[in-house]
C-alpha cells in the first residue's frame, strides 16, 4: 500500500461533492447508479482490496444508504473491516453495521465473533468501539452472546475506567432491550454493587443507572446497595468529605450522581439500621439546609442543579413517608417555591405537594398553603400549572375545608380552560359528595355545577346525583324543589333537564301541594324543554310523564295527548316511538292500582365505590395520588360501568324490553336498572370477575354479557326442550369501524361431550355505532357443570382487541316448568330419597327476605313455583324437568326461609346423581 495516501479518502469527498452538485434528482440517481456499479466491480470476489480502499467504498455505500437508497451488498466487506487493526477502518466497519444491520443469521454470527474478539482485545479503544456497537444494535441474540463478556469487563480489576463506564452503560442498554435474556451471574452482584464506591465519577454514575435497572427487576438480590448508596451520598453531600468535591457543576457537587442515588434509594423502604437511617436523614437534612443558603451564582444552571437534587430528595422523603420533621420541612421548602418567579419551579412544587398532601404527617402542613394555591389557580398564566393547582386542591381537601375549596373551584370553573373542565367537574363532584355534611349543600353544588359546566358533566356525574337523591329520603323533597327551580331558568342544559326530569318523575308529588309547582305547572315546565332535547333525553322525559300519570292522575289526559302526538307516537326514533306506544297503552289499559305497582318509586341503590373515582382514574391514571398505590389492581373495565346508575345505552334498553315483554307482557319503567335481585348481585362486588357478572344470566333470558369502552355484547336466549336458541348482539360503541371481527364459543374438556354448540358465523366488520347480530343454537347432550368459553377478537384502530369471558349457559336454561298437585309432589319427593339424589344447604340471606321476590326469582330460574303444597305458606316448593337430548331429568325443590335467623334452607332432589348439587351451587348465593 502506498504510504502517501492518508486517511483523507479523496474519492469519497469527490463523490459527495458530485452528489451535492447534482441539479436534479435524476442526475443524483444516475451518479449513484454509476458509483454502485463501480463499487460492485471493486468488491468482486476475485479482486483483492487493501483496507483503505475497503474503508473508502464502505463509506460510500454508507453515504448512499443515508441518502435513502437500498444497499444489498458490501456487508461482508464491512465485517472484514471489523477485524482490521487500524482504528479508522474498524470505526467505519462498526459504523456501517450499526447503521445497516443485516438480519441474516450467518452474518450476525460473524459480527458477534468479531465483536467478541474486540471485547477480549487489550486495546481499550477497540473494546469501547465494540461496546458502543453492542449498545447501539444489541438485541436478544447479542444479549445472550455477551452475557458473560461484558459483566466481566465491568467487574475485572484491570480494565480502565472509561471501559468500565461503557460496559455499565452497554449492559444497561441490553437490559432494557431484552431484560429476560440477559442473565447475570449472582456471584457478580456484590462486585457490581461495589462499583458505587468507584473513584471515577463516570463509572459511579453509569453504575448507579445500571443498578437502578437491576434493582427494579430483582430488589432482594441488590439489597446491599442501600448502605453503599447512603454512604456515598453522604460523602458527596456533606462537605466534610472530599469525595467528588472536585466534580462540581456550578458549585453543586456531582448533581447527576446525587439525583441517581436518591432515585435508587426510592426503590427500597427506609433502611432498618438506625445508623444508616440517621445518616440518610442527615443527608436529606443537609440538602434541605443547602436550599436555604443564598445562591452562589446567578447562573440558571446553578439553581437548576441545586433544585434537581432538592426535588429528588423531597421525592425520597415522600417515598419514605416516616420522618414527619423532614416532611414538614420539605413542605415549607415547597411553599417557598410556590412564590418563585420561575414557572417550572412552581409546577414542580405543586406536583410534589400533591404527593405530600397524601401523607398523614404533612397533610396539615400542606393545608397552610391553601390560600397560596387558590391564588395560584386564579393568577397563574400557565395552564399546566393551574392544572397542578387543581390537583393539589383536590388532594388537600378534607372535611374542614371542603366547603371553601369546593366554592373556590366552582368559581374558578366558570373561567377554567376547556381542557381541564371535565376533570374539574369530576373532582368537584367527588369532593362535594365525600365531604358533604349536609346533602342539601351537596345538591346545591351539583346543580350549580351542571348549570355552569353542563357540557363537561359526564353521565356518571348526573347518575351519581340521582343515586344520592334516591338513596336519601331526607333530601328528596328538597331535591324536587331545587330541580324544579333550576328548570325554570330560560336556558337550561340538557343534563339539567335529565336530572330534573328524573327527580320530578320520582318525587314531583312531594312539592305538588305548593301552588307554585302544581302538577300541571311541573308538567308544562318539563314539556317546554322536551322539544329542545336529544332523543335519549326525550325517552327519559317520556318515562317521567308516565310516572306523572301515576303520581298525578288529574293530568293523565294531557300526557296521553302528548304520547298520542305524531312526533312521539310516530317518531322516526324507534325508541321514542316504542315508549310512546307502550306508555299510551299502559295508561289506557291499567287501573290505578296496577299502575301504582308498575310505576313505584325506585328502590335505593346499593352503596359502593363511587363510579366517579373510577372515571377520574380512567381519565388520569397518574395524577391521582391514590392511583399510585392502587394501580396494581385496577378495577376491571367491565364492572366499572356495569349496572351503575341508570343505563340508557341502546342495546341495554332494547334487550331489557324484549325480556320484559316476554316475561310480563308489561313494561316497567325503562330507565331504571333491571329488577332488583340480580342487579345487586352483579354490582355488589365491583371487582369480581366476569364470571360473577355472568351469573346474573341465571334468571334472565337476555342481558348485557360484556361491556367496555369499545363494545357491548348483548345476549338473548330462548329454550325449546334441550335446545337453546342464542342471539348475540355486538354493539360497536366507538366512532371507528371494528374489523376482522371474529367470535368463538367453545366447550372445554368434559363439557365438549355435554354441550353441542352451533354458532352462525358473524360479520367481520361492525360499522361505527352499529350493531351486528349472531345467531346459533346450543344443544344440551347431558347435564353439565362448567361454562363454555367465549373468545372475541377484533381490530379497533388497527389494534388487536381480545375479550375472553365465560359464556353464561347454565343447566337451568334447560329446565321446563312442571305443574303438579300436593299429593303428586310429595309422592315424587319421596321417590327420590337416595343420598346421591338429594342436596341440602343452609345459607344466610343476602337480600331482604321478601316473599314475592323469592317467588319471582324461582319462577325466573325456570321451574314452577307451586302454591299451597307445603303446610307452611312461607315455604316454596316446585318442580322442573331438565331436558337433555339423551334423557329428561326431573327435579324438585323446597326452599324454607327462616326470617328470625335470616337464613334459608334449600333442598333439591333430582333424578340424576350430581344434578341436585349443581343446582344448589347455582342458587345458594342468590337469595
Amino acid at each position, binding site marked *: 500500500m502506498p504510504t502517501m495516501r492518508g486517511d483523507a479518502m479523496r474519492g469519497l469527498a469527490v463523490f459527495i461533492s458530485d452528489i451535492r452538485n447534482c441539479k436534479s434528482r435524476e442526475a443524483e440517481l444516475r451518479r449513484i447508479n454509476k458509483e454502485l*456499479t463501480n463499487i460492485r466491480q471493486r468488491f468482486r470476489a476475485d479482486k483483492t482490496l487493501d483496507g483503505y480502499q475497503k474503508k473508502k467504498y464502505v463509506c460510500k455505500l454508507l453515504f448512499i444508504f443515508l441518502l435513502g437508497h437500498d444497499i444489498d451488498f458490501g456487508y461482508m466487506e464491512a465485517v472484514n473491516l471489523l477485524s482490521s487493526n487500524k482504528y479508522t477502518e474498524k470505526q467505519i466497519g462498526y459504523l456501517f453495521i450499526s447503521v445497516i444491520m443485516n438480519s441474516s443469521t450467518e452474518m450476525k454470527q460473524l459480527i458477534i465473533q468479531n465483536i467478541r474478539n474486540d471485547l477480549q482485545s487489550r486495546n481499550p479503544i477497540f473494546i469501547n468501539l465494540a461496546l458502543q456497537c453492542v449498545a447501539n444494535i444489541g438485541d436478544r441474540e447479542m444479549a445472550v452472546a455477551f452475557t458473560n463478556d461484558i459483566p466481566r469487563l465491568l467487574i475485572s480489576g484491570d480494565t480502565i475506567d472509561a471501559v468500565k463506564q461503557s460496559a455499565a452503560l452497554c449492559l444497561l442498554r441490553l437490559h432494557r432491550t431484552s431484560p429476560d435474556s440477559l442473565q447475570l451471574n449472582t456471584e457478580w452482584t456484590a462486585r457490581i454493587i461495589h462499583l458505587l464506591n468507584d473513584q471515577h465519577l463516570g463509572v459511579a454514575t453509569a453504575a448507579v443507572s445500571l443498578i437502578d435497572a437491576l434493582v427494579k427487576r430483582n430488589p432482594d438480590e441488590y439489597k446491599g446497595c442501600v448502605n453503599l448508596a447512603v454512604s456515598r451520598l453522604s460523602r458527596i453531600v456533606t462537605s466534610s468529605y472530599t469525595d467528588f468535591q472536585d466534580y462540581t457543576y456550578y458549585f453543586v457537587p456531582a448533581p447527576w450522581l446525587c439525583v441517581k442515588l436518591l432515585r435508587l434509594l426510592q426503590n427500597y423502604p427506609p433502611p432498618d439500621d438506625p445508623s444508616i437511617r440517621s445518616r440518610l436523614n442527615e443527608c436529606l437534612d443537609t440538602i434541605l439546609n443547602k436550599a436555604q443558603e443564598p445562591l452562589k451564582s446567578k447562573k440558571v444552571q446553578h439553581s437548576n442543579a441545586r433544585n434537581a437534587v432538592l426535588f429528588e430528595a423531597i421525592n425520597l422523603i415522600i417515598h419514605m413517608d416516616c420522618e414527619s420533621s423532614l416532611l414538614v420541612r420539605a413542605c415549607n421548602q415547597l411553599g417557598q417555591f410556590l412564590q418563585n418567579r420561575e414557572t417550572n419551579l412552581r409546577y414542580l412544587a405543586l406536583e410534589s405537594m400533591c404527593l405530600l398532601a397524601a401523607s398523614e404527617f404533612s397533610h396539615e402542613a400542606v393545608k397552610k398553603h391553601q390560600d397560596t394555591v387558590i391564588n395560584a389557580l386564579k393568577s397563574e398564566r400557565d395552564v399546566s400549572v393551574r392544572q397542578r393547582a387543581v390537583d393539589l386542591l383536590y388532594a388537600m381537601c378534607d372535611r374542614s375545608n371542603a366547603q371553601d375549596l369546593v366554592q373556590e373551584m366552582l368559581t374558578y370553573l366558570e373561567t377554567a380552560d376547556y381542557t381541564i373542565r371535565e376533570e374539574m367537574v369530576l373532582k368537584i363532584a367527588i369532593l362535594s359528595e365525600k365531604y358533604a355534611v349536609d346533602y342539601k349543600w351537596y345538591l346545591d353544588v351539583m346543580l350549580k355545577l351542571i348549570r355552569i359546566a353542563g357540557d363537561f358533566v359526564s353521565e356518571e356525574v348526573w347518575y351519581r346525583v340521582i343515586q344520592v337523591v334516591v338513596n336519601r329520603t331526607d333530601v328528596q323533597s328538597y331535591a324536587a324543589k331545587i330541580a324544579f327551580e333550576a328548570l325554570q331558568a330560560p336556558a337550561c342544559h340538557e343534563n339539567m333537564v335529565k336530572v330534573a326530569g328524573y327527580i320530578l318523575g320520582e318525587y314531583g308529588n312531594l312539592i305538588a301541594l305548593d301552588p307554585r309547582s302544581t302538577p300541571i305547572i311541573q308538567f308544562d315546565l318539563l314539556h317546554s324543554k322536551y322539544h329542545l332535547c336529544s332523543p335519549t333525553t326525550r325517552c327519559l322525559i317520556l318515562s317521567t310523564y308516565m310516572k306523572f300519570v301515576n303520581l298525578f292522575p288529574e293530568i293523565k289526559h294531557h300526557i296521553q295527548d302528548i304520547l298520542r302526538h305524531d312526533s312521539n307516537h310516530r317518531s322516526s326514533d324507534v325508541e321514542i316511538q316504542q315508549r310512546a306506544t307502550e306508555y299510551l297503552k299502559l295508561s289506557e289499559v291499567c287501573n290505578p292500582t296496577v299502575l301504582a305497582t308498575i310505576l313505584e318509586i325506585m328502590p335505593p341503590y346499593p352503596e359502593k365505590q363511587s363510579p366517579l373515582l373510577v372515571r377520574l382514574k380512567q381519565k388520569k391514571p397518574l395524577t391521582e395520588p391514590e392511583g399510585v398505590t392502587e394501580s396494581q389492581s385496577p378495577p376491571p373495565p367491565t364492572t366499572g360501568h356495569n349496572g351503575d346508575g341508570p343505563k340508557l345505552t341502546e342495546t341495554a334498553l332494547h334487550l331489557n324490553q324484549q325480556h320484559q315483554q316476554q316475561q310480563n307482557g308489561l313494561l316497567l319503567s325503562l330507565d331504571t336498572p333491571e329488577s332488583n335481585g340480580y342487579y345487586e348481585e352483579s354490582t355488589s362486588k365491583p371487582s369480581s370477575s366476569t364470571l360473577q357478572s355472568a351469573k346474573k344470566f341465571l334468571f334472565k333470558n337476555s342481558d348485557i354479557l360484556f361491556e367496555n369502552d369499545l363494545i357491548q355484547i348483548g345476549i338473548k336466549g330462548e329454550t325449546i326442550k334441550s335446545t337453546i336458541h342464542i342471539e348475540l348482539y355486538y354493539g360497536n360503541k366507538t366512532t371507528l369501524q371494528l374489523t376482522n371481527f371474529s367470535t368463538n364459543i367453545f366447550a372445554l374438556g368434559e363439557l365438549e361431550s355435554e354441550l353441542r354448540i352451533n354458532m352462525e358465523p358473524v360479520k367481520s366488520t361492525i360499522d361505527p355505532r352499529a350493531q351486528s347480530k349472531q345467531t346459533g343454537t346450543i344443544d344440551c347432550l347431558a347435564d353439565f357443570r362448567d361454562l363454555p368459553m367465549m373468545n372475541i377478537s377484533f381490530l379497533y384502530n388497527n389494534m388487536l382487541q381480545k375479550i375472553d369471558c365465560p359464556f353464561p349457559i347454565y343447566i337451568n336454561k334447560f329446565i321446563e316448568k312442571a305443574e303438579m298437585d300436593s299429593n303428586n309432589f310429595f309422592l315424587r319427593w319421596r321417590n327420590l330419597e337416595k343420598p346421591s339424589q338429594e342436596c341440602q344447604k343452609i345459607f344466610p340471606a343476602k337480600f331482604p327476605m321478601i316473599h314475592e321476590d323469592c317467588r319471582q326469582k324461582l319462577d325466573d330460574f325456570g321451574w314452577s313455583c307451586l302454591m299451597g303444597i307445603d303446610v307452611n305458606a312461607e315455604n316454596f316448593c316446585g318442580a322442573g324437568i331438565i331436558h337433555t337430548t339423551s334423557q329428561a331429568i326431573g327435579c324438585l325443590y323446597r326452599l324454607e326461609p327462616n326470617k328470625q335467623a335470616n337464613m334459608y334452607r334449600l333442598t333439591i332432589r333430582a333424578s340424576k346423581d350430581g344434578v341436585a348439587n349443581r343446582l344448589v351451587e347455582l342458587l345458594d348465593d342468590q337469595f
Partner: protein
Amino acid sequence: MIGGVFIYNHKGEVLISRVYRDDIGRNAVDAFRVNVIHARQQSRFPVVNIARTSFFYTKRSNIWLCAVAKQNINAAMVFEFLNKMIDIMQSYFGKISEENVKNNFVLIYELLDEILDFGYPQNSDAGVLKSFITQQGVRPVTREEQTNVTSAVTGQIGWRREGIKYRRNELFLDVIESVNLLMSQQGQVLSTHVAGRVAMKSYLSGMPECKFGINDKITVENRTKNPGDSTNPTNNSTANNSTNPTTTTTAATTKTAIAIDDCQFHQCVKLSKFESEHSISFIPPDGEFELMRYRTTKDISLPFRVIPLVREIGRTKMEVKVVVKSNFKPTLIGQKIEIRIPIPPNTCDVQLLCMKGKAKHKSSDNAIVWKMKRMGGMKESQLSAEIELTPNDKKKWNRPPISMSFEVPFAPSGFKVRYLKVFEHKLNYSDSETIKWVRYIGKSGLYETRS
C-alpha cells in the same frame, strides 16, 4: 381560469411570477416549491392540489413551469397552454434554460401579458405575437403598422396580415410521425399507434387559398363515389402519390387509403368545408405552423423489429443477445438508431460484442446503449452481452422492456399527401408557379419490446 403562472429554476427559486387573479395569494408560490419541488417524495402527478388550489406543472430542462388555478378548470387546456408557452419562448429565444429566462424576463412578462388576459388564454401564435412583441426595444411605430397590428389581432383572419410579397413562392410540407409500440417477447404486438403531425412552412405572396389532399379513407371513398368532382391531376406534381383518381379502382383505394382515428387542424383550416366536402382548405399563416395532427392505429408498418434473448446462467451470470431487423424498402435508410437494453441493478461488469455500430454499458442508467448511425432496409444486426452480477437474493429483477429510437424517411402509417394546391386570385400567380417540397419523417415514440 388560470390564476397565475410561475417559472422556477431547478433549485426552486422563482424566476417568473405572474398572478392574474386575486384568488391566488402570495403564498401559492411557496406552497408549490415546498410541496412539489422540494418534496421528500418525488411527485409523480402532473397536477397537485394544495390547500384547494390546483397546480399544473411541467418541467423543461431543469426549469419548472407551473400554472395555478383556484377554480375547477379544464386541465387539458392548461397543459396545452403551458406547451404553447414553451413553444413561444423557444421561438423567441431558443433553448429554455435558467440563463435564457433570466436574460429575457422583460420579454417573458410582456408575452405573459399578451397571451393570458384575466386568466383566459388569448392568441398564442408565435408568428402573430412576433409582429407586435419584438426584442428590438422601443421604435416609433407608423400608423400603417398600427392598423395592421389591430386588424391582425382583431380581424377575421388573425393569423395572416395583408400585403406579403415574395419573389419566389415556396412552401415546405413535413409529415412527421412517431410510432409507439409495445411488443411481447414472442414478437406479438401488444399495442401500437402512430401520432403524426403535418408541419408547414409557407412563403407565399398575398392571401393564397390552399387545398390539401390526403389519402384518408373517408376522403378517398368520397371521391371515388363522385368521380366528376375530382380536380385536375396534373396539379399533383410534388406529391409522391400521383395516382389518378379517375383511373383508380376501388380495390386500390382501400389498399392505399388509411384510416385516421382522429385528427385536429390549425385554426386557419375551414372546418365547415371539411365537414361538408371532406376537403381541407385554408389560408396559411406566413412562416412556420402546424397544419394538422392525427392518430392512426391500424395497418402500421413497423420499421424495426427487436428480438431479445435473455438467459440467466446461475446467480452471478447473465447472457443477453439482441437482434434488430429493419423492415422497410432496401432503398431507404434508417438513421439515429439507438437501442437501450436495461440490465439488472446488481450488475458489476459487462462484456459487449456487436457486429455493427457502437455499444456501451451505461452504469448510471443501468442499461446497455447500442447506437448505429444508419441502417439500410431489410438488414439484420446483432449484439451479444455477457453480464456479471453480484449475488442478490432479496429482490427479483423485473426485466423492464428494451426500448429503441430511430428515424426513417417514410411515414409508417402509410399517410400520403395527395396534392396541395395554391390559388391566389388577386396576384394571379398560378399553382404551378409555386415550388412545393414534401418530406416524410418517421420517428420512434415509445418503441418497446419486452425481454
